[in-house]
C-alpha cells in the first residue's frame, strides 16, 4: 500500500514535470506562434520577424510622443482648474493626442495587412479576425 502511494506520488510529479518542461521548451519569440500556426516557410518566418521588428521601431516613437502629449494635456488641464474652462491650448493638446493615436492605429493596421500578406491566402481572413479586435479596441471603448 505504502509503495503504491509512493509510486502514485512519483507518477503525479512526473506528469506535472513533463508538462512544465514541455511548456518551457516550446517557448519562443512572439512570432513563433504565427509561423507554426500558419505553417510559414523559413523565408516567410524571417519576413514576419522582420516586419515585427519594423513595427516595434515604428511604435516606439509613437508611444513616446503619446506619453509626452498626455503629460502636456494633464499639465494644461490641471493649470485650468481655477477657470474650469477648455482653453484653446487644451483643445490643441487633445487634438494632438488624437492625432498620435490615429497614426499609431494606422501603423497597427498597416502591420496587420503586411503580415497577412505573408500568410497563405485562405488563412488571411482568419488572421485578421484574430488581430483586428486589438486595433478596434485600441480606442478603449470596449
Amino acid at each position: 500500500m505504502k509503495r503504491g502511494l509512493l509510486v502514485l506520488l512519483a507518477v503525479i510529479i512526473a506528469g506535472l514535470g513533463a508538462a512544465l518542461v514541455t511548456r518551457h521548451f516550446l517557448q519562443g519569440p512572439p512570432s513563433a506562434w504565427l509561423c507554426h500556426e500558419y505553417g510559414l516557410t523559413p523565408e516567410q518566418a524571417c519576413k514576419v520577424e522582420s516586419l515585427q521588428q519594423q513595427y516595434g521601431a515604428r511604435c516606439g516613437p509613437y508611444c513616446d510622443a503619446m506619453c509626452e502629449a498626455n503629460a502636456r494635456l494633464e499639465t494644461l488641464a490641471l493649470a485650468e482648474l481655477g477657470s474650469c474652462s477648455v482653453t484653446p491650448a487644451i483643445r490643441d493638446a487633445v487634438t494632438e493626442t488624437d492625432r498620435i493615436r490615429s497614426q499609431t492605429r494606422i501603423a497597427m493596421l498597416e502591420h496587420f495587412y503586411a503580415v497577412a500578406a505573408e500568410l497563405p491566402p485562405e488563412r488571411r481572413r482568419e488572421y485578421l479576425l484574430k488581430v483586428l479586435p486589438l486595433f478596434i479596441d485600441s480606442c478603449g471603448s470596449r
Partner: protein
Amino acid sequence: MNPADNDLSSLLQGWRADVEPDTGFHRSVWARIEAAESRKGAGLSTLFSWVKLLAIPRIAVTTAAIALFGGILIGGVQARSAQEERYLLSLKPSAASTHLH
C-alpha cells in the same frame, strides 16, 4: 351551523386512526442505510486496491508512461496557448516597442 354539520363534526371527533405501522419499516430503513455505507466502503476499497496495483512494476511503468505522455500533451497545448497570447500582446504598440528594446 346546521344539524348535518354537527353530525359530521361529532363523527370526525370520534374517529381514530387505526393503522398499524408496517413491522418491516425499521428493518428496511436500516437495510438501506447499510447498503449506502457498504457502497461508500466499496468505492474506497476500489481506490485502495488500485493504489496497491501501482506497486506492481509493470503497472507502475505503464501509469508513469501515461502520466508523462499526458503531461507532455498538456504542456504542449498550454505552450501553444501562451504563445498565441504573447503574440497578440506583442502587437499592442507599447508592447511592440518594448520587445524591440
